[in-house]
């Protein structure tokens, strides 16, 4: 296969894999964070404000990794 077509193939494949595989971990992580938050809210409803705050911070850190995958995917498609 010529180099040009091979590069296109690799680009699309890489972009798809980057986003797809990169979302598995953060998905599980966000689920675990929300599980912990819901359990603690059920145990102790008056701590709800603080719990929700820290849950969102935890979700943000986990989601950042998925966003890095998205950035790599976009760079592969549009910049390389």
């Amino acid at each position, binding site marked *: 296969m010529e180099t040009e077509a091979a590069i*296109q193939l690799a*680009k699309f494949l890489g972009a798809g894999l980057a986003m797809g595989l990169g979302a598995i971990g953060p998905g599980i992580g966000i689920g675990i964070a929300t599980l912990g938050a819901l359990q603690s809210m059920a145990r102790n409803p008056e701590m709800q*404000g*603080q719990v*929700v*705050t*820290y849950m*969102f*911070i935890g979700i*943000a850190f986990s*989601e*950042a990794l998925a*966003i890095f995958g*998205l*950035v790599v995917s*976009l760079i592969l*498609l*549009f*910049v390389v």
Partner: protein
Amino acid sequence: MKKAIPYIIIAIILLVVGIFIPLSTPLVSIRAEHLFNLGPLNVTNSVLTAWLVTILIFIVTFLGTRNMALKPSGLQNFLEFLVEGLYNLTESVSGPKWVSRFFVVPATIFIFVLTANLFGLFIGIPLAGLGICEAHHGEGTQVEEVHVEEAASTSTCAPGEEIIPLFRAPSADLNFTFSLAVITQIAAWTFGFMALGFAGFLGKFIVFGGIFKAKSFGDFALGLIDVFVGLLELLSEFVKIVAFSFRLFGNIFAGEVMLLVVAFLVPLVVVTPLIGFEIFVAVIQAFVFYILSVAFYRVAITGHDGDHDEAH
């Protein structure tokens, strides 16, 4: 069940008719499409939509606060509900001392981004063939040219030209979301300096004290770890800008692309629940931006030892 029958019939008719309506694929581009030039200013469709959102918010607020009553009703009631809800939520996160300072920028961003996200759902306009025709400008790869050859289409453009949608959610433009993220982070750093002082805030990231005060090897190792964690947190302050901007951009842009592609692939009525989902995503993403800003402000004003000085 009986009341739903006319709607079911309409839906079935739309489903059948939608199979036969050919639709042209509007151009899908990461960059907001250029519409016209206002002097040296490059007005893209997302800039136009942002102006519309600003005017809309101004009109709604003006109408709602014209005759301020002590017991609000109607539009004023809704606006007070919005502002008070956000204020109480901020107060529950930040404590009463900082709430008036934390509240301003994120609440403005929330209201603007919420309205702006909803404007990206007008996919009917480019699909119906209304819009500005522009010659297709390649954008790096042939990703945008992946559309099937259509024999007939409702496009009013010459072949080789694509329809540029007039409305595009401003949050689907990376410039907009990046600016919002930069503003939010600068505010966070400002609050950090206000709360902890210049040396105190920087002392959260550049922590060499643990090494010098070490009395044993264990303490020295912990001090070394502190140094690296501090540098990692310094890097993460800048990574938050990227994360904020790409989270909002990715969600809204991906939603727009999905709506356009699904409208091209399946009969039109199937797009309706997806538009409902996109409304949900619009509200959630605006709220997530808001609550993360406030949460990071809260983290920024706490000292290195994580002292909780605010009572909840």
